[in-house]
């Protein structure tokens, strides 16, 4: 160890990994519906695509988790995204292909991809 800068680099490299363990961070939460219906409809590839994208873009303060049945089985796979201080947005009929766009436009830039949301589907 030669300098505080070097120490800071190690810290930053590990920080994202351990941040998850802090209590309820203020970051963006991505929640994928993963009950039986969700999994049957293909929620696993969607979840994996989110993980891949978050990793590739090295996004800070984003947590990806899953939940049980969100309730509208015909619209699965469903994903809920909550940015700090904003209302929850629910995406429906998600696929791995759509994930890239949702991450780029909504998670990173704050622009909801309206055409994928539950509002557009109903």
């Amino acid at each position, binding site marked *: *160890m*030669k*300098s*505080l800068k070097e*120490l800071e680099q*190690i*810290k930053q*490299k*590990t*920080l*994202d*990994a*351990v941040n*998850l*363990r802090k*209590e*309820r961070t203020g970051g963006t*939460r991505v*929640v*994928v*519906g*993963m*009950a*039986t219906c*969700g*999994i049957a409809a293909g929620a696993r590839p969607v*979840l*994996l695509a*989110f*993980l891949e994208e*978050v*990793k590739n873009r090295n996004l800070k303060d984003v*947590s*990806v*988790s*899953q*939940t*049980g049945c969100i309730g509208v089985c015909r619209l699965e796979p469903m994903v809920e995204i909550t940015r700090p201080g904003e209302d929850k947005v629910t995406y429906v009929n998600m696929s791995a292909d759509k994930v890239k766009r949702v991450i780029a436009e909504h998670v990173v830039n704050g622009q909801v991809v309206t055409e994928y949301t539950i509002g557009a589907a109903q």
Partner: protein
Amino acid sequence: MEFYRSHVLICGGTGCHSSGSADVMEVFKTELESNKLENEIKLVQTGCFGLCAIGPVVIVYPEGAFYSKVTTDDVPRIVSEHLLKGRIVTDLLYHDSVHDDEAIKSLDEVEFYKKQKRLALRNCGVIDPEKIEEYIAFDGYKALGKALLESTPEEIINIIKASGLRGRGGAGFPTGLKWEFTAKAEGDKKYILCNADEGDPGAFMDRSVLEGDPHAVLEAMTIAGYAVGADQGYIYVRAEYPIAVKRLNIAIDQAREAGLLGKNIFGTNFNFDIEIRLGAGAFVCGEETALIASIEGKRGEPRPRPPFPANKGVFGKPTLLNNVETYANIPQIIHNGADWFQSVGTEKSKGTKVFALGGKVMNTGLVEVPMGTTLREIIYEIGGGIPDNKEFKAAQTGGPSGGCIPAEHLDTPIDYDSLARIGSMMGSGGLIVMDEDNCMVDIARFFLDFTVDESCGKCPPCRIGTKRMLEILNRITKGQGEEGDIEKLEELGKNIKASALCGLGQTAPNPVLSTIRYFRDEYEAHIRDKKCPAGVCQALLQVLIQAELCKGCGLCVKVCPTDAISGERRSPHVIDQSKCIKCGACMEKCPFKAIVKG
């Protein structure tokens, strides 16, 4: 670095380890692999979460789901339900970790953690103690960097002095002063020692720090080395703590590899290294001069002071000796400043204290509270009270050096000075709760038995005096007490306190004197009435079957190991007192509560 969507934290402290957490970890590993989740979910073995009573403990983030008493059979469900499908397995959650509407509380809202303030334990149960990067991610080694690159040794000592930190090993000597004495001592070579010889029965906070956050101790010792001008450190740790020793060894290797121990740390010309020395089962080695003798490879006998270790310590050189919990506070004090630390605690005792809460209390485990918290808050709010609706009788602090605190002092805010005033002491932080079923004379005898066994034999007051006290106590608990015994105990105790060579002997009478002070009536009942009110002292008891309650079921006959019980079926049984060994097995078994001790 891989991005994991979820972290599964499994407690690897000794408590949970003993309850089988290593097997739970293994099953998690295979279950994750068979569900192809190993690249999404990270398994972390951490240090102690504190709630040993409900171990093994598993916490799943980001939800913060707090699973308790997890068995290997539960793991497949947690993996397939929670980790795969996102449905938290509610029935396995710790009951106090969920709101009435089944929403998960954050840890700060759980009763057990609400009143706690985790400084020394801040990383325990949060980081993987075998990964130096995780320690660094939580600002580890930053204090060392700041100290070496931006402060002079004097400035460091001044921060520690200003913080008001006092030694957590027992006596509460101001840490900053100790550092200053050692820094000012003349010597071509100086040493930094860490006292991890946690021999106080019922205390395991130092073990938990070493197991859960070993780098904090290494960092603090290195800072101390810089402050007093030492280049070698030794950690003297009990051989009874194999997990702690293993993790310390890993941590030392990692720190050396990262250049945080060794030569030219942080590019400066400061060199420092640390080695581990194992104790070999001698309680007196927790005393500083005895510990020093033991590191030198001698019998661990204390010697008179002065000279103090600050001037003449290990190998005859100036030596700084602090205990584990004291060190665990140092990096944060340097990092956050003296004022920050000053803001916690009471006027003369700053910061927090870790207590090992044990005995007759619901939530046994490790708790860390600001100095000045009352015993009532610790035992009833954090500890969840006494099990089985029994009545609180006393809290024992300070182990064999401390005393028993009765109910009338439950609302005393605890710090070093208030505990000394009520006849006990902080000690290393064991806090054992006793209820109506515990006999205070027997407890005093228990501690004396301990000190007699552990007395090194060097000075007569301790070697002979404690033995005489134990003989009197043995007589009293056997029903052979005489008038005047209590006074004899008091006089012996006072003289031993005044004349013993080291801390072990000087404090050995405390458990006896404090129980006499608060529970004199129990002593008198043993001596005059030949009765043990709590029903503990075997010689003063008979186990009896109450004929009016006995249904003659015969269960007691089967369980009795000495065939002392006989009787016709469906009619009251009797116990042959000459055969009865008073083990109590029949009392436990009797469905009608017909068997009593009296």
